C-alpha cells in the first residue's frame, strides 16, 4: 500500500504575500489548508536586550523600528513608560501633538494595510491610491522630525520640537515647470497645521474612493466574507487587541477604556464588527480611518489656538536650548550629562500601553534605579494575532491564507522584535 501524505508547502520567507519575512509551513490537501505553522524570528534584532545597555533616550529610535509602519505609536508607549517611572506631567500642547501624530500614524498604518491587503487579494489600484495619501503624511513626519519613517520625535517629557511654522515646498526640477510646481505646492504655503487641515478636509473623499473600489465589490466580498472568522470569546482568549478584537464585536479600545494623553477630551467613536470575519475587520479599519481623521481635525483646531511649550521645563530630562547652552555653564553641563549619561529613574516597574493601529502596544519596564532599564518587555499586538493564524486558516484554501495574513495586518518588525 502506498502511503498518502499531505502536501507540505513552504510559504515564504521569500513570498510576495508574506509581509516581510513570514515563513509558513502549510500542510495541504490539494488546495485546502490542514495546518499552518508560522515560523518567526527571521527579523529578530534583540531590541529588548539592546535597550538594557543604553540610556533611556537612546532607545527611542529602536521603538520606531519595531512596527515600522506605526512608528510614533511605538515611541509613544515607550516614552509613556519612562514618564510614568519619572512621574512627570508633560505640557498640554505636547499631549495634543502626540495625539495628533498617533492618529496620523494610525492613518499611515491603515493605509498601508489597506493597500497591501487589497494587493494580496488582487486589487492593485488601491495600493497606489493609498500610497498617494501616505506620501502627504510622510511629509508631515519629515517636516516635524527630519525623517520620513523613523522619526524619534516623542521624547520623555514631551516632543522633540514644536510644529514647524512652515511646510517644506517642492522646488523646480527638470521634470516639472513652474506652473506644475505651484500646483503641487498649493497646500504648502502656510504652516504645517494648515497642511494637515487641508489633508483632513480632503481625506474623507479619498476613503470614499477606496471604498468605491472595494466595499460593495462582489469579488472583494466573496474573498473576505466568512474568511478567518474568530468568535468574540475566542478572540479574547487568544489575546487579540485592536481592530482584530473589535472586528469580532468586542468594544475595546484603550483610547476609550483607559484614556491616555488627551483622548478623553476627543470626540470619536469606536467601530465594532459583528461576525468577526475579514470583511468586518476591513469595515472596522475603514471606519477607524474616518474616526482618526476626526480626531486630527480636533487636534489641529486646538493646536492652532493654543501655542505653548512642548517639553517639560526640567533640565534633568529635557535638553536645554542651543542658545542657553552656548552661554550658560549650567546648561552646558545639563546638555553634556543628558546626552552622555542620561538620567536615572527611580526603582520600580511600570506597564504602559497605547492603542497602536494594530492593537495594544505595551511596554513593561523594570528599573533598578540606573540610567537604563533593567529589563524591557515589549508587548507586540501582532504576536498573538499571528499565533492564531493556524486556527484562522484551517480548512480554508491557499488563497485565503493570503487574505488572513492580510487581515491580521502583520508586521514582522514587532513580532520578531
Amino acid at each position, binding site marked *: 500500500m502506498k502511503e498518502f501524505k499531505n502536501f507540505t508547502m513552504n510559504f515564504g520567507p521569500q513570498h*510576495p504575500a508574506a509581509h516581510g519575512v513570514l515563513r509558513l509551513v502549510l500542510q495541504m490537501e490539494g488546495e485546502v489548508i490542514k495546518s499552518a505553522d508560522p515560523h518567526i524570528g527571521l527579523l529578530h534584532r534583540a531590541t529588548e536586550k539592546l535597550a538594557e545597555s543604553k540610556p533611556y533616550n537612546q532607545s527611542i529610535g529602536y521603538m520606531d523600528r519595531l512596527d515600522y509602519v506605526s512608528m510614533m505609536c511605538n515611541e509613544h508607549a515607550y516614552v509613556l513608560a519612562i514618564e510614568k517611572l519619572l512621574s512627570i506631567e508633560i505640557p498640554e500642547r505636547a499631549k495634543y501633538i502626540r495625539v495628533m501624530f498617533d492618529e496620523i500614524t494610525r492613518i499611515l498604518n491603515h493605509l498601508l494595510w489597506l493597500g497591501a491587503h487589497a494587493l494580496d487579494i488582487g486589487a492593485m489600484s488601491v495600493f497606489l491610491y493609498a500610497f498617494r495619501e501616505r506620501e502627504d503624511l510622510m511629509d508631515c513626519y519629515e517636516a516635524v522630525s527630519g525623517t520620513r519613517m523613523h522619526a524619534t520625535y516623542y521624547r520623555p517629557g514631551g516632543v522633540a520640537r514644536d510644529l514647524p511654522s512652515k511646510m517644506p515646498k517642492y522646488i523646480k526640477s527638470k521634470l516639472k515647470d513652474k506652473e506644475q510646481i505651484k500646483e503641487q505646492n498649493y497646500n504648502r504655503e502656510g504652516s504645517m497645521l494648515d497642511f494637515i487641515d487641508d489633508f483632513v478636509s480632503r481625506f474623507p473623499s479619498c476613503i470614499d474612493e477606496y471604498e468605491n473600489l472595494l466595499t460593495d465589490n462582489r469579488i472583494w466580498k466573496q474573498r473576505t466574507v466568512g474568511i478567518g472568522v474568530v468568535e468574540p470569546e475566542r478572540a479574547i482568549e487568544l489575546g487579540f487587541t485592536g481592530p482584530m478584537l473589535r472586528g469580532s464585536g468586542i468594544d475595546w479600545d484603550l483610547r476609550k477604556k483607559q484614556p491616555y494623553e488627551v483622548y478623553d477630551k476627543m470626540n470619536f467613536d469606536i467601530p465594532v464588527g459583528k461576525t468577526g470575519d475579514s470583511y468586518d475587520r476591513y469595515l472596522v479599519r475603514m471606519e477607524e480611518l474616518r474616526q482618526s481623521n476626526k480626531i486630527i481635525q480636533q487636534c489641529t483646531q486646538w493646536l492652532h489656538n493654543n501655542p505653548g511649550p512642548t517639553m517639560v521645563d526640567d533640565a534633568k530630562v529635557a535638553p536645554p536650548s542651543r542658545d542657553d547652552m552656548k552661554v550658560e555653564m549650567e546648561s552646558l553641563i545639563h546638555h553634556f550629562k543628558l546626552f552622555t549619561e542620561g538620567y536615572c529613574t527611580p526603582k520600580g516597574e511600570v506597564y504602559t500601553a497605547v492603542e497602536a493601529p494594530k492593537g495594544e502596544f505595551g511596554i513593561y519596564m523594570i528599573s533598578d534605579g540606573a540610567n537604563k532599564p533593567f529589563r524591557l518587555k515589549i508587548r507586540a499586538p501582532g504576536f498573538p494575532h499571528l499565533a492564531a493564524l493556524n486556527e484562522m486558516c484551517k480548512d480554508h484554501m491557499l488563497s485565503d491564507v493570503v487574505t488572513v495574513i492580510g487581515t491580521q495586518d502583520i508586521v514582522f518588525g514587532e513580532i520578531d522584535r
Partner: protein
Amino acid sequence: MNTIFLILDILIDIIMVVLPLFLIVAYTTYSERKIIGFMQSRLGPTRVGPFGILQPIADVIKLLTKEVIIPSNASKGLFLTAPIIMLVPSLLVWSVIPLSEYFVIANINAGLLFILALTSLSVYGVILAGWASNSKYAFLGSMRSAAQIIAYEIAMGFALVGVLMAAGSLNLQEIILSQRGGIFNWYWLPLFPLFVIYLIAGVAETNRAPFDVSEGESEIVAGFHVEYSGVAFAMFFLAEYMNLILISILVSIMFFGGWLSPFEGTFFESYSQWIPGFVWLSIKTLSFIFIFLWLRATLPRYRYDQIMRLGWKIFLPITIIWIFLEGIMIYYKVEPWFVI
C-alpha cells in the same frame, strides 16, 4: 511553378500577419503599463525613449539575452517543450481570422471549430509547464489552470454555439457577413448574455485578472511559469498577450460585426465608405483590449473554487437557456437577425 507561387503567397501572408502581430503584442504590453499607470495615478514607463516608447524593445532584448535556467530536478525535455506548446496554437489561430473582407490566410469552413480547438490546446502548455518544473508552486498553478479551463471551455463553447446558430455557418467570413446592416444587426443585441459570458470566459481563458488564479502573484507567486526565465518565459508572455488580442478580435468578429462599418444603413454610410474594414476591426479590437486592461486595474482576484462555481453554476445554465430562447427566435424568424 504554380505551387511555388502559392507557397510564396502563403508565406508572404503569414509574414504579413505574424510580424505586425509581434509588434502589436510588444506595444500591448506598453499600453497596458501606460494605461494602468494612468489609472493608478502614476506614469508607467518613461525612461527608454520619449514617453518610454522603446520600453518593449528593451524588454525584448533583455529577455532574449537572459539565460534560460533549467531547474536541476525538472524534466528537461518537457520543460522546454511547454512554452512551444503554449505559443504554437496561439499563433496558429491567426490563420483563420478574417482581418478584412479580402484578407484571411485560410478561409476554411470550420473556422469557429478550429479556433475552439486551438485555444483549448494552450492549457496543455500550462499543465506541462507546471508539471515539468517540479516545483510545488508551479504544480498548484497548473492544477488550478486545468480546473479553470474545463469550467470555462464549456460555457465558452456554448456561447459560440449561439453564434453558430445565428449565422448558420462556422466560417468566420460568413459569420461577419450575416451581421450586415448596422450596429443593431450585430449579434451583441440578440445574443447579449452570450456576448457577456464569452467576454468573461475570454478573460478567464487568457488567465488575466480577475481570473489570473493560475499565476496569482500574491498566492502562488507566478504559478505555472515561476521557474521559467529568458526566452522560455518570453514565449509564455507572448502567448498570453496574443491570446488577449485574439479574444478581443474574436469578440469583435462574432458579436460586433468584425470589419463591418458601424454606419451601415445610416446617414453616414456614404461618407465613411472609404474607411477600410480593417480599421473598424482594429477599433473594435482595441476597445476590448482596453476593457481587459481596465478590469485588471480595478478588480480583485477570484478564488479558484469561486471561478469554477461561476463557470458551472451560473454561466453554463445561462448559455443553455439562451440557446433555447435563440432557437425559438430563429423558429419565428425574429427581425432583423434571424431572417435566413
